């Protein structure tokens, strides 16, 4: 799952070295536009919709991983 997230972030921002502890704002210096750009890529990749109110609870990569697990989004990728 981490590889998938890292791939999406790299494709959007060109940022490498993603770990579960990577903070989207402090470490990657992402702007709100960057974050929304990534959200759109996730929605397209996994054919899902992520409510905007949920986005601001995703501070680091582990938050994204947990969110995907809770929503069962990761299973689509593994199938």
């Amino acid at each position, binding site marked *: 799952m981490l590889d998938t997230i890292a791939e999406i972030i790299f494709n959007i921002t060109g940022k490498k070295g993603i770990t579960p502890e990577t903070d989207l704002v402090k470490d990657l210096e992402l702007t709100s*536009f960057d974050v*929304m750009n990534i959200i759109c890529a996730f929605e397209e990749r996994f054919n899902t919709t992520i409510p*905007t109110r949920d986005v601001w609870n995703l501070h680091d990569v582990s938050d994204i991983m947990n969110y995907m697990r809770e929503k069962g989004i990761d299973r689509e990728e593994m199938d």
Partner: protein
Amino acid sequence: MKELHYNGFTLYIGSTPSDADACIRDCSMRYQNASRYTNALRYTNATRFDNACKPDALIIQRTQRGKPYFTDEAAPKFSVSHSGGLWGVVMTDRADIGFDMELERERNWRPVARRFFHPEEVELALSHGRKTFFDIWCAKESVVKCTGQGIDEDFSAFSVVRGGATLSPPGFMLIPLKLGDEAGLTDANILPHMHACVCIALSEENHI
């Protein structure tokens, strides 16, 4: 650090801790008792550059939706944005204010427009291209930073354009900034491509 004085607010823009220090010195002279506030603000600005700088939790707080503010009602209002390795902060002693800047860059921006823009904004962005998209994005984000609402499900419910021109929502004044042209800043690789907008609340009833 560069400070730019507009009618009603000051924009400070920089990239380094020394820039933040210069911002503090200028704010201290310009706003009454501002040094204690600007020292706290330095954390907001320089957090990505200077981990030793800690905020004073009693001076800067955040609303439930994350908007930072000085707890002292007499303190100036401010709004902060980062992009392209630069930080910018606007300060005013008048009204609620929101500021956003975004470096125009190669991105698949069309899905973002369709997902987060008002239909009138989508139409304009798709017909005019990336530059217009970033202008609209900065204008919208400056509005929701001014209100403190942030980007939520209502972000696409209001429009900052009408008939192809910038439209200030009722109760607000949008001021698009051309940093590369107006600021006299020297980084030719960044500033001509930096989109920026300030939103000032004109009334106390500042909900969109």
